[in-house]
């Protein structure tokens, strides 16, 4: 594994319900990322289909073995790139059980997937109406380091990121479809999740407007001490190249020893009190 890897934060506006157009855009940007020396291209939550789908999600969801993932696998093989993107994933064993999923693909094909654990169902969000919650954090050992996948609203729940970190994640990747009125929360929380876990955090948000809902972009790479190392434009599409240097993890862990100071007994209490809430 290399100490340093170059990432491309591909802050796109997805064309809603138009997988072909979105796949084409993903392909173009992945090739561009490759040309610029990046090894990993990251796309937003539900970038395959757009985010505001309502009942159309039943038509657009496809299994992880479906044609879109196959197309992405071919792209990753051809370009020798790693790609992370979001899609509505149809569960293989059912006809209409869908997950909000982040998929990671490498030059040798599918590496894995993460099914969003925290589904926002308040304000303008109606994810529980359509999606089943995931049950497991997901961390994958890759040629680019240990990568932990998370999605959007998960960022409000430190335990998701902590679990990923404890499972070995060095780079936390949070793909997102966050509307503009929530920008300040995400700017605070992404930095907090990176800092408290002393891990890199790549946050990639949608841009553009879907059904009047405006996504704020602002994708970023946070250092293990919570510093913004690179940042995309607000509100519009952007392509941001940045670099992760894993040697910084040791420095950060030593300087802010949150992992050393973890107290497992508190997690028992957390569980206990959560059940009483």
């Amino acid at each position, binding site marked *: 594994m290399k100490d340093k890897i170059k990432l491309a934060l591909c802050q796109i506006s997805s064309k809603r319900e138009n997988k072909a157009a979105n796949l084409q855009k993903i392909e173009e940007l992945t090739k561009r990322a490759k040309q610029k020396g990046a090894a990993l291209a990251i796309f937003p939550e539900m970038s395959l289909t757009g985010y*505001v789908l309502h009942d159309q999600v039943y038509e657009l969801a496809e299994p992880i073995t479906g044609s879109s993932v196959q197309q992405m696998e071919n792209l990753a093989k051809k370009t020798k790139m790693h790609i992370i993107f979001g899609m509505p994933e149809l569960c293989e064993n059912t006809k209409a059980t869908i997950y909000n999923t982040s998929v990671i693909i490498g030059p040798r094909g599918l590496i894995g997937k993460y099914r969003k654990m925290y589904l926002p169902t308040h304000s303008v969000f109606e994810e529980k109406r359509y999606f089943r919650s995931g049950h497991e954090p997901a961390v994958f050992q890759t040629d680019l380091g240990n990568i932990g996948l998370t999605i959007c609203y998960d960022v409000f729940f430190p335990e998701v990121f902590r679990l990923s970190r404890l499972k070995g994640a060095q780079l936390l990747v949070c793909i997102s479809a966050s509307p503009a009125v929530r920008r300040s929360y995400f700017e605070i929380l992404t930095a907090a999740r990176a800092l408290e876990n002393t891990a890199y955090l790549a946050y990639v948000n949608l841009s553009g407007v879907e059904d009047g809902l405006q996504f704020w972009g602002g994708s970023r790479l946070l250092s293990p001490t919570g510093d913004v190392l690179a940042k995309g434009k607000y509100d519009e599409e952007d392509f941001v190249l940045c670099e992760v240097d894993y040697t910084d993890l040791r420095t950060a862990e030593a300087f802010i020893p949150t992992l050393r100071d973890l107290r497992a007994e508190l997690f028992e209490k957390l569980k206990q009190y959560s059940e009483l809430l």
Partner: protein
Amino acid sequence: MKLTPNVLDMDFSTVEKRVCRFIKEYVEKAGAQGIVLGLSGGVDSATAAALSSKAIGGKNVLALMLPEKETFKRKDIEDAQTIADQFQLETQTIDMTDVLKSFYQRIPAFDPVDRLCKGNIKARTRMILLYFYANKQNRIVCGTSDKSETMMGYFTKWGDAAADIAPIIDLYKLQVRKLACHLGISEELALKPSTPALWPNQLAESELEINYETLDLILYGLERFMKSKEIANQLDLDLTIVDKIKKRWISNEHKRRMPLPAKLGFRTVGNDFRLPRHTY
């Protein structure tokens, strides 16, 4: 949370940018040739017109000026024309007097003393004219309702609330006034007392029986899930005033929705049939 006037402060540059993007994106995705809106000479329509102009260019925005004899005020027409000139809008003036007269004469149950029924005919006639131009010229109708009047149900069902987009519907009246100034609209027009112009000398604040400075803070508190008592205490108001506003807000929800559907099928229009507005 402290309910002080500054809770209504916003970064109006960001608001302008977001609303303009919202308008531009919708017009493009709808495949429309432009926008049509009613320009009354009041702050709401002036602000919606200014934003539309900034979003898609004034030449693509048709402002209808729709005077009628009973509520005619030269000052309103002058103010509307000032906005049209300032933001380089296309304009069309249609005197509604004869159209309205025909309506009145041909409705057997028409009662000139019943000003609400009569006034609502005016609001709905304006809507008909706006949608005529929308159909004829492939435009979308830009609504000009603000959050204060919409929450209060202070509008005509299928009249002034009928539109394809509502760019300022999430801004309270005081915020619209500030946005208007930010957009370069004169302070005189921005602070002009609001009227739906359904009958002579009609004033919004008199009819609502509260000034916007107080109303907007009450509504802001309700929006933020505050309880009536807490709002009344903070604003030093009688609880009955806040409760009255709250009741009016809730009881007017029917005006803000599609017709109540009788649920019979699997998925029902206006209920659990949930589809995106447009497929692109």
